[in-house]
């Protein structure tokens, strides 16, 4: 890679979202914004190679993209509305809007618009990856295992809905902000989880998706520093991602938390995650992401599995359950109780959950039950539960892990 190519690649990571967000605000036209941003980066590749990299690459790209937008709008000024757009783009008071704070606000606007509840969840995720992170339609399609044409249609449909139903391009007003922020965080966490434990296919992890999710969460936490849950989500992602190198063994098999080589955990990410979490908790407005990050921190801080503060984890899951009863949270609490008080106590909680219809089809329920029975040396029952879990496990490595456990209790 030449110096110019490296500079363009770096500028793309830093500036793409900002440029698209600003152009959308100024033109109201999502396709135009994306195309002009793309053209600006293409122009940079040739121009920077011959003339050298400009002192402020972001400003160069922004100006180039904006001039492309102006040109395009002027050329198609048959429609009165386009003329208005040209007027708006070339308004004399406008340079102020290109200042740092204005540009940052634009990205926040873009994030809230992409995650508007009037769009489907799939569209929210795809639109965020396309417009904010700059992934191509082909890349997003690959990440979600759908044909490129399907993904292109999904993106086009979402952009048309934003335009035609007039979804506002703004950070929501105060009375809508808490709910909408929760929605944005949910999209980012879904993105992270899709990368961290893929819901389908042969790969257990997709580091490209976890990387984008962390990058966007970092951006959001920076733009909304007073909202502890945004910081909590970033902390949670970092603490989970810190374990990624130890989650799979040499053969690509899933390694349980207990068996992971903790020297392979990324201590820099753990330190940053804990620091962020502590900053968030100091605001004394706990929420689900901060609590989950606190649980992840309990694991991260234990040098050996035996050092884990399971009583504290059980307590944190109890707190988490107060933000909305979830069978998954209850199952995790049962595991923590089993570790703190013994397998029988955990098994009693798991069996209560098994009576609940909401969890049928969730492979971790029989898998957890099997693990607890194995610890109690009730091997035949454990084997039956491993078999039940195998039928429900979504990915190959998870199935292989369960098969290995099954052979241990059947042998």
């Amino acid at each position, binding site marked *: 890679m030449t110096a110019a190519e490296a500079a363009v690649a770096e500028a793309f990571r830093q500036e793409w979202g900002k440029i698209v967000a600003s152009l959308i605000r100024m033109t109201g036209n999502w396709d135009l914004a994306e195309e002009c941003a793309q053209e600006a980066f293409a122009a940079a590749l040739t121009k920077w190679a011959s003339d050298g990299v400009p002192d402020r690459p972001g400003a160069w790209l922004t100006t180039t993209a904006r001039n492309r937008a102006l040109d395009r709008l002027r050329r198609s000024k048959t429609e009165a509305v386009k003329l208005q757009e040209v007027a708006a783009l070339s308004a004399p008071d406008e340079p102020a809007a290109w200042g740092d704070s204005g540009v940052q606000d634009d990205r926040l606007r873009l994030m809230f618009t992409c995650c*508007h509840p*009037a769009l489907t969840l799939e569209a929210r995720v795809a639109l965020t990856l396309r417009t904010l992170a700059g992934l191509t339609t082909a890349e997003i399609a690959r990440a979600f295992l759908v044909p490129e044409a399907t993904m292109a249609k999904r993106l086009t449909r979402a952009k048309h809905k934003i335009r*035609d*139903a*007039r*979804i*506002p391009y703004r950070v*929501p007003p105060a009375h*809508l902000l808490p709910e909408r922020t929760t929605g944005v965080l949910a999209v980012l966490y879904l993105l992270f989880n899709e990368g961290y434990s893929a819901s389908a296919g042969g790969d257990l992890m997709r580091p490209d998706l976890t990387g984008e999710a962390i990058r966007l969460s970092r951006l959001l936490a920076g733009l909304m520093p007073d909202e502890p849950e945004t910081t909590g989500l970033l902390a949670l992602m970092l603490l989970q991602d810190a374990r990624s190198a130890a989650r799979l063994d040499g053969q690509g098999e899933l390694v349980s938390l207990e068996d992971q080589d903790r020297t392979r955990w990324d201590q820099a990410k753990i330190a940053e995650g804990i620091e962020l979490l502590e900053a968030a908790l100091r605001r004394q407005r706990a929420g689900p992401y901060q609590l989950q990050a606190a649980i992840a921190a309990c694991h991260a801080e234990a040098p050996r599995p035996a050092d884990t503060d399971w009583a504290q984890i059980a307590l944190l899951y109890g707190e988490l359950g107060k933000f909305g009863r979830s069978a998954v949270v209850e199952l995790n609490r049962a595991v923590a109780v089993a570790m703190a008080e013994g397998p029988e106590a955990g098994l009693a909680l798991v069996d209560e959950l098994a009576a609940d219809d909401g969890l049928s089809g969730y492979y971790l329920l029989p898998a957890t039950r099997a693990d607890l029975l194995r610890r109690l040396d009730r091997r035949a029952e454990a084997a039956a539960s491993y078999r039940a879990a195998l039928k429900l496990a979504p990915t190959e490595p998870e199935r292989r892990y369960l098969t290995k456990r099954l052979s241990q209790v059947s042998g």
Partner: protein
Amino acid sequence: MTRYLLLMCGDETAEQIAPHPLADDETEEPCWMPWAREMEARGVLLVEGAQLQPTSTATSVRNTGDEMLVADGPFAETKEQILGYDVIECTDLDEAIYAASRHPVALAGGVVEVRPVLASV
């Protein structure tokens, strides 16, 4: 300003979802009046609106080119029916969603479909 059609949907046999718009006692105001006042105060323009007669009065008409088909009943037999409509004008979808969420049909457990009107004013 964008124009939206609010389509009120719900089970027309459920008394609380399909209230009669005009109270028996003429001195009492219709149930949608507080909504209309709230919308007016927010700057949402109420263009027009009405509650519909039940689907037992509906007629569906098709023209295949060769013949005209007339049938008794609504276009789709579903558990939920169209109970009425309002046409509003407001700034954006968030405002239209708010208007829908405050409508008596939504408050009574019905669903309000929000559709932008093509070529809005």
